[in-house]
């Protein structure tokens, strides 16, 4: 089943991935990373199609996609 893995170390919580996910699966998480950012988390994991749009748009290469 497709999924994404957000590396919290790299995520800056910019939210660009939120807007591009066709399934609206990504949100700012409740926790902050060392740099103080609320890093992205995937919700409703099972709906992910592995379309990679989130990873493509991410400026900080924080998302890996598995399919």
């Amino acid at each position, binding site marked *: 089943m497709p999924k994404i893995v957000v590396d919290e170390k790299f995520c800056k919580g910019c*939210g660009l991935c939120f807007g*591009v996910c066709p399934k609206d699966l990504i949100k700012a998480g409740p926790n902050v990373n060392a740099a103080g950012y609320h890093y992205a988390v995937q919700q409703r994991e099972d709906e992910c199609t592995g379309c990679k749009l989130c990873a493509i748009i991410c*400026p900080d290469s924080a998302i890996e*996609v*598995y*399919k």
Partner: protein
Amino acid sequence: MEKVYERNKLLANFNTSFCPGCMHGTAVKLICEVATELGIEDSIVGVMPIGCSVQWGMFVNFDTFGVPHGRAAATATGYKRNRPDNVLVVYQGDGDCSSIGLCETVHAANRGENFTVIMINNQVYGMTGGQAAPTTLPGQKTTTSQAGKNIEEMGNPLNLAEMIAGLPTPKYVTRQTLHTPKGVLAAKKAIKKAFEIQIDGGGYSFVELLSACPTNWKMTPGNAVKYMNEVVTKQYPVGDLKG
């Protein structure tokens, strides 16, 4: 389960100092991905300009060298003429490339130096805190055009890519955008084409990438994307201009 998208190995294993939503990061990622796909990890060399853009050189796993503000194309000329087998990426901000460095940029293009200039057009001087650049849009508020850019006094946006495309020598001139996944993929294709031309000894290529500076635009990254969609890409139409 197969990994279908991963963080490129040419990127350093620590985070960049770009602001959240800054698309400099996107551009650098694309350069690294293309370098990997073309197998030029050992021959790619980068030029670090002055601007927020300078930071790119500090988090890619290949050699990069710094240059004075605006002189990237001249320094690159000296370098590349003597190392023709390396693939040289001249990474510049719009201020660096089109304001103070215009003379060097245009003359290198006109001589047809065999390297690739990638200009990140975020319509402001990012690093110094958001002053107007030659690329700033009519009416745009910046710290030096606080009432909105008055084109009577400051001039129309300088469409540098069009200017370079008008020269007979350059091989490939294109403008792409980084604010949508589609744009990012097209930008990547453009960078690849530019590198391929260079590898074949084909000559000068210029890739302009529209980008956001949420910090100095004083917008959230999300609003910055919307603004790019609705305003920026209207002034700066995306597509190949030459080659």
